[in-house]
């Protein structure tokens, strides 16, 4: 296992940070978060034209750069830090992940180059209104119809689901239960019979949609009735990627709160000189560094093909969830009254911390998954 970043990786990170500081300042985040779509084509194209970010982890055979999770997670960490509004996670982690894990060679050839080039916005629709993150909770059905299938049912909490061109859908054969009978399908965003609605989100920097399927024509992705394993694998990857995104946000909050405390005077001295402020900052540093270590370790475990990676992924997600939220609570508190205002940026990360904590299962959910792996 590798415990440090290489010189190239560090350089990649600093280029990326400069790019995002420049292109995604909070003024831009605030502008995009107020829109229904949540992102803009021009910004998205720049990400790919200038830095090739959607291609990072797509293998070279499918038009990508062929890097590992180590590099992909650097991108996500920096995006979490800047709160970039883009369908990046949905496209490169969820949809590309499901296609890589489940698709046939021909399907990868057909679908991945568009994602690598940034031309295809894609997502994964697995969760339904029940809010369960488990494959077994799927109720949306797929019925064979000639060479293709017809989907009926609904999906909810679909990341960027209202704007994606390509939707990977988890569905089950009628009459099946549990993890049996599950298959992945691909559906065009504008397919007939598919209605999509943006949900009202608490964290406006992360858009979610509800999708209704009425006899929607769909193509099977990968093998029929065998989606459970690749889905679970995709969720493990998603937990690791999200944990990395989250520690980027947590560290940004910690640094901003520290800078504010150094500058703000009360009682004739900087508030940073009060011992209770110092202790809070020290605790924040400790928690954020632990969460970063867990997130980095889990990314390396994915690249190394570590057998224990499902447990490690859950550990990282649980750790990042508690840390990000706690850091955000401290950050608002350190800012005092100004931290409670709309114009101060802290609440943007505070809300992102909560949506990230909940997405793909909260800390207790992941602690339980970890224990199931380790207690067995």
């Amino acid at each position: 296992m590798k415990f440090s970043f290489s010189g190239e990786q560090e350089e990649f990170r600093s280029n990326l940070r400069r790019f995002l500081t420049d292109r995604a300042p909070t003024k831009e985040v605030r502008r995009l978060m107020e829109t229904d779509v949540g992102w803009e084509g021009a910004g998205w194209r720049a990400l790919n034209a200038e830095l090739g970010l959607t291609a990072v982890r797509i293998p070279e055979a499918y038009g990508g750069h062929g890097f590992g999770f180590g590099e992909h997670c650097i991108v996500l960490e920096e995006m979490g830090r800047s709160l970039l509004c883009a369908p990046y996670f949905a496209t490169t982690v969820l949809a590309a992940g499901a296609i890589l894990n489940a698709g046939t060679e021909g399907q990868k050839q057909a679908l991945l180059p568009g994602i690598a080039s940034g031309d295809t916005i894609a997502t994964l629709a697995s969760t339904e209104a029940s809010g369960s993150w488990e494959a077994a909770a799927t109720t949306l059905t797929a019925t064979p119809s000639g060479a293709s299938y017809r989907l009926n049912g609904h999906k909810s909490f679909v990341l960027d689901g209202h704007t994606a061109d390509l939707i990977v859908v988890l569905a089950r054969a009628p009459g099946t239960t549990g993890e049996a009978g599950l298959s992945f399908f691909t559906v065009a965003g504008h397919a007939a019979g598919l209605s999509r609605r943006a949900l009202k989100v608490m964290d406006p920097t992360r858009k979610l949609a509800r999708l209704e399927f009425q006899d929607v024509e769909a193509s099977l992705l990968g093998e029929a009735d065998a989606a459970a394993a690749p889905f679970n694998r995709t969720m493990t990857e998603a937990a690791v990627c999200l944990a990395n995104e989250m520690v980027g946000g947590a560290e940004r909050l910690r640094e901003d709160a520290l800078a504010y405390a150094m500058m703000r005077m009360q009682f004739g001295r900087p508030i940073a000189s009060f011992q209770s402020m110092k202790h809070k900052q020290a605790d924040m540093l400790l928690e954020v560094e632990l969460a970063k270590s867990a997130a980095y370790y889990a990314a390396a475990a994915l690249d190394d093909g570590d057998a224990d990676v499902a447990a490690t992924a859950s550990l990282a997600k649980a750790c990042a969830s508690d840390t990000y939220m706690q850091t955000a609570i401290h950050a608002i508190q350190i800012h005092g009254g100004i931290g409670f205002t709309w114009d101060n940026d802290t609440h943007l990360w505070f809300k992102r911390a909560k949506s990230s904590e909940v997405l793909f299962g909260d800390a207790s959910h992941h602690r339980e998954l970890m224990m199931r792996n380790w207690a067995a």
Partner: protein
Amino acid sequence: MSENTEASVRAEVRAWLEANWNPELGLVEWRNKLVDSGWGVPHWPKAWYGRELSAGLIPVVDEEFQRIGAIGVAKAGIRTLAAATILAHGTDLQKEKFLRRSLTGEDTWCQLFSEPGSGSDVAGAVTRAELRGNQWVVNGQKVWTTSAHHAHWGLLLARTDWDKAKHKGLSYFIIDMHQPGVTVQPLRQMNGHASFNQVFLTDALVQPEFLVADVGDGWAVTTTTLMHERRGADSLRSWAMGSDRPGRAYDEERAEIATTMEPYKWYPQRAGRVDLILPRARETGAIDDPVMRQEIAKLLVMSKSAEWTARRARTAQEQGRPQGPEGSLGKLVSSYIARAAARLHTQMSGANAMLTGEDSPMGGVIAEIFVSVPATSIAGGTDEIQRNIIAERVLKMPREPSVDTIKPFRDVPRNVVA
């Protein structure tokens, strides 16, 4: 002094309410009657609309109001703090002019203490008041002023002497908010509401008779206001929710809640809505989850014991004994309760915690709890300041060496505010 017992008070207030309560009266007309009867603020002095009833008997009076559905005097908001402060420090003229109209709800108030450069350090205020001719002329800026956009009057802390030490150069005024020198600009909060404001004071005027206490005594008066604010933050606080009954007085109360009380609409959410924890636990099934049950139980242990601590403090007060430490803890524990409740509410909501508005649980109430609770540990004095007060005043732990209270205020380092 007559012997007031629970039974005698209950009988007396019940008889009075039965003879006088009439939902078809106008709200102000009814509250004026109430003020005259002494049942509106029965713990107040007899000379000023009260009956000098001990604090322990107040719940009996409240119960009788609830039993018959009678509306009480205007109780929520800064006007309560204004009334308590004026009662303690005001002149007879000020009491005459302001107390009754605060109780009837005709006057709405705001608290002009915090400034861009001084919040925790309220005594670091740099808004200046100067006596020019026969008037006080005020210049400066206040911030986070809840309800300033509805207020007729403001409780103003301003500096009148820059050569004295920090706490000695302050004075306390009642300022007319409806004058050309006062400009109010709403500030949007992270929960989307705009209940607080920036207030710009540019040659704003205060008549000399609206100085509260003496010049240079502003800090003592401020402390009274803050003490009432912090006491009020304990877990016994309840917010007027209005009633859905028919009747003119109810209609007018509903209108009051929708207008002058509108800034406080989210206040129940900011306290964490512990009342919704068990109903939501049943609705979401969290009640059957052993881990969640433990978390819910921990919160209920804390909120119940906090409620009983507040009652102990009240009882001590009612028996005329000095308040023990329990009186200082309510505000701090209310922050812990609010935070724990917000966490549980979002946790119980699962994926739905990512939503807001009509797409989300209880039409947005759960989301509003989450984005409002951070105010609890800041407004009215931060948790850190409450801990300092408890440590230094209650526990008598040594104070930190002071760098700002010993020299003339004009020499004290402070924030540069644009």
